[in-house]
């Protein structure tokens, strides 16, 4: 089964690097990119992604707020918040909004683990 992954990050380089890791880990899955929360909301409607990866520190609406909204409107979509800010408050807020916390720089191992559990969650739904 091939899934669509929405990658939300204001940094183009960060989106490129997540896409690169995604291709290595799950070559059949397809990336959708959004540069901010508004684009992400539009992509949720238009692109119907199965999994969402959100950067925390973005201009405008931050990734935790967006993750909370996605979790409320799309409870079956696995969401991960990716953040260079690794303070305990951020990690626990990510968990509180139902998201997985992944630290930046993102490693293949960490993303791989998240995608595997997302895959398991999606196939059992």
């Amino acid at each position, binding site marked *: 089964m091939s899934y669509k992954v929405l990658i939300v990050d204001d*940094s183009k*380089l*960060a989106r*490129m690097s997540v896409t*690169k890791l995604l291709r290595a880990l799950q070559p059949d899955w397809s990336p959708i990119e959004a540069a901010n929360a508004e684009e992400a909301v539009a992509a949720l409607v238009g692109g119907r992604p199965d999994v969402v990866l959100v950067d925390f520190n973005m201009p405008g609406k931050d990734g935790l707020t967006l993750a909370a909204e996605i979790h409320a409107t799309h409870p079956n979509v696995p969401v991960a918040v990716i953040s*260079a800010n690794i303070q305990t408050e951020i990690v626990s807020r990510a968990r509180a909004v139902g998201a997985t916390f992944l630290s*930046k720089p993102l490693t293949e191992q960490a993303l791989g683990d998240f995608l595997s559990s997302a895959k398991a969650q999606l196939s059992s739904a």
Partner: protein
Amino acid sequence: MEQHRSQILNDLERDALSELVNLGVGKAAANLREMVKDEVLLSVPSVTVVSRAEASLLINEHETGRLVAIHQRFSGDLKGRALLIFPEANSLELVRAVTGGDVPLDDIVDLGQEALSETGNIILNGCLGTIGNMLRRTMQVSLPEIMRGNSSELLSLGGDQGYGEAVLFLFINFSLRERAVRGYIAMLMDLPALTSLRDLLRQYIHRMSDETDSIHVES
């Protein structure tokens, strides 16, 4: 000159540098958080190449009073100066946050210089170290030095007139959730240092992305 300056780093290179600063400051904030036991709030970093005068104006947009800066030089594969800047009026509160609430005011004043140096050292080294690691380069970092003055005095740094006029100005502000402390991190690099940095950023971009993916999109 304006055009020349803005061409030093293209959009993707500036983007890469912002990401590195984000990583560095994220690490530094986690260190600071442990010291002050309070969440450190961070802004989205902005990266611009400006003149020193413009950099000073950027600080003045946020701060009009006297400032304190902890200043460190870095040299080696990457060269420049990093400053942790905050309003002088905030400095005692920061020292108090770092030393804990039990220290009497007199002692805080005595401890002040030392606590500021140590705080600056931890934040700036956390930031520079992460950037160096990601670029796979090492640098030497000087001992912290404390300066006081307005923004243009802090940015001109006394005898350093030999530095080129264009500087890379990284601007990120941080504040403590529970205390009236806010500050900025600025990094200054001259033109030759910026050119070396650009080459390292290109290698970094190459490592982080697929070449087939390198379509140029304005962000």
